[in-house]
């Protein structure tokens, strides 16, 4: 089995820097180190599939002696997916740990910007609702008064619609 020297060197560098960065105290650096070491391991699996330049397996094709071994690629793909999931989890962990160290447990009761906006919006909406309702009652009162007058005077209670409004009605 022969492997590409470039990839071997690259893998070694990634392992080295990855382990070095992982030894830091900061969680973000640990994550970066994990990503480097994880991908170095993926490269290691990839190296096991033999030299570059061999033909891939195709459906219905012939399998020659120098066809590339597909199994390491499958293993690599699985490992990448697993690393991806774990990375997402670590990011959540880092965020949570940042949240706790900056705000403490009380931080859970602090509202985020969005929540604040929502709260303000809700307040505004309440005010708007209240003002609309007071407008409605005022209009109703006026209408009631008009009706009272209408009984006395004879002409229709509602005022004559203007020219434009008639057009709209048609």
């Amino acid at each position, binding site marked *: 089995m022969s492997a590409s020297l470039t990839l071997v060197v690259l893998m070694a560098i990634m392992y080295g820097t990855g382990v070095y960065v992982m030894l830091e105290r900061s969680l973000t650096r640990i994550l970066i180190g994990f990503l480097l070491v994880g991908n170095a*391991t993926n490269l290691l699996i990839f*190296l096991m599939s033999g030299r570059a330049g061999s033909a891939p397996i195709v459906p219905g094709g012939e399998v020659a002696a120098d066809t590339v071994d597909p199994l390491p690629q499958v293993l690599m793909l699985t490992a990448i997916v697993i690393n991806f999931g774990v990375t997402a989890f670590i990011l959540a962990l880092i965020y949570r740990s940042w949240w706790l160290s900056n705000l403490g447990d009380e931080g859970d009761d602090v509202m985020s910007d969005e929540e604040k906006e929502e709260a303000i919006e809700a307040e505004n909406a309440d005010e708007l609702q209240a003002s609309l309702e007071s407008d409605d009652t005022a209009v109703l009162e006026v209408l009631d008064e008009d009706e009272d007058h209408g009984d006395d005077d004879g002409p229709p209670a509602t005022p004559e619609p203007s020219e434009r409004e008639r057009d709209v009605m048609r």
Partner: protein
Amino acid sequence: MSSALVPLLVLLPLIGAAVTLILGRYPRLQIVISVSALTLVTAAAAVLLAVVDHSGEPVVVRVGGWEPPFGIVLVVDRLSAIMVVVSALMLLGVLVFAVGQGIADRDRDTPVSIFHPTYLILSAGLFDAFIAGDLFNMYVGFEMLLAASYVLLTLGGTGSRIRAGVTYVVVSLVSSLLFLGAIALIYGATGTVTMALLSERIRALPLDVQMILCVALLIGFAVKAAVFPLSFWLPDSYPTAPAPVTAVFAGLLTKVGVYAIIRTDRLLFFDVPLMVPLLIVGGLTMLIGILGALAQADVKRLLSFTLVSHIGYMIFGVAIGTELAMGATIYYIVHHIAVQTALFLVVGLIERVGGSTSITRLGGLLKKAPFVAALFFIGALNLGGIPPFSGFLGKVGLFEAGAQSPSPLVYALLAAGAITSLLTLYALMRVWNMAFWRPKAEVEGYESPLIESLQESPETTNGTATGVATATRNSALMTGATTGLIAITVALTVFAGPLFGLTQRAAVNVVTPEVYVESVFPGGTP
């Protein structure tokens, strides 16, 4: 027929996880589904164990109809079946406990909607690791259960859990990467990851190459199994989790590592002379673990240290590697899974009755909760290896196997094992004397019930469930589940004869890998 049951071990919990995730808003339905999924798995595993033990041949399933070197095989031999049955029973018991706790707490503390799916995924990963017929599938099983365990350990996201979770996650990640790297190297050396085929091909390699591959794999597994130089993460991370989660972790997660060590050591690398290093490491694990336990005031931490220490016995058995030693090791694993899980659940009960897990604060529990005291007493004697309990029987088996392959180092290990056993008893009896036996009035700083409740209140801020415990009572479900698990540990003693026979037969399979290889490749290896 029986081969149809094998994929169900993994599929049922996975489907259950999906359904419980969808039903996140209906906690009662979630409970019904997860309990029934685990019950079905337990039943399927029991049937498989009976079938496998009766026929003596492993049940092999070729997933997707692909032939072994290309496709994935699932292999259930006696060892896998025993492990699956025991862990399914434990998972079920702990689930009932967790449900009881959830009902008693009215779900204030933990977002239970994600507890059930995660717990089921953990079970699926565990079973997958036990029945995997190739190394990479075992890696996937490990990753499933580890990913689920990260979530369970940091459940609720309080400060102490996040801190403990970071240690645990980083250590697990490094060990997983080591495992994966080892798989890559093994694939490079042999061109396969199917264990049955590896068993033949690794033997053809030069011994030094075998040695490197074996040690690379072993280091990955030893981190997971918490073997001595690689065990420091465990007592720092396990105790902060909720009681049921700690119980499952303590009982099962380290044993997967031990199982993997047995598999690789006996099936893949049986030519590699690792007896001496394994013996040294096993002895150090025992002694240093138990000395750590003696220094602890917190019962959960103390139990975590005894957990590390008793892993040493299993490593001792694996190191000797004879048929008798393997049988005793498997029996010891079964015993230890059961008793450690049960004891952690009892500590969960103590925490709620006494309001703390620190023996400096606990006292008078014998009067306050006599039943919990009885449960703890049985579990403690069992773990401490008092005859006639299963802990004693397992150790007798291991010592007997040790004495049959005599060397100065083995005798040193026997002495270390006996001392560890005594010290375990001492550590647990200290808990008994402080927490249960001494009157409440002797607890330092105790003056009156009013002041006591004031003093305990600071504990509510440390984020664990301790604070809740001052006001809560144990539900019948929790006590019932714990009693059930303690009853299982007693049953391991009562039925020790037949069980020892079973583990001995399992050991025969483990020690002679030809049976395993032939069941995967009936027509000879390619």
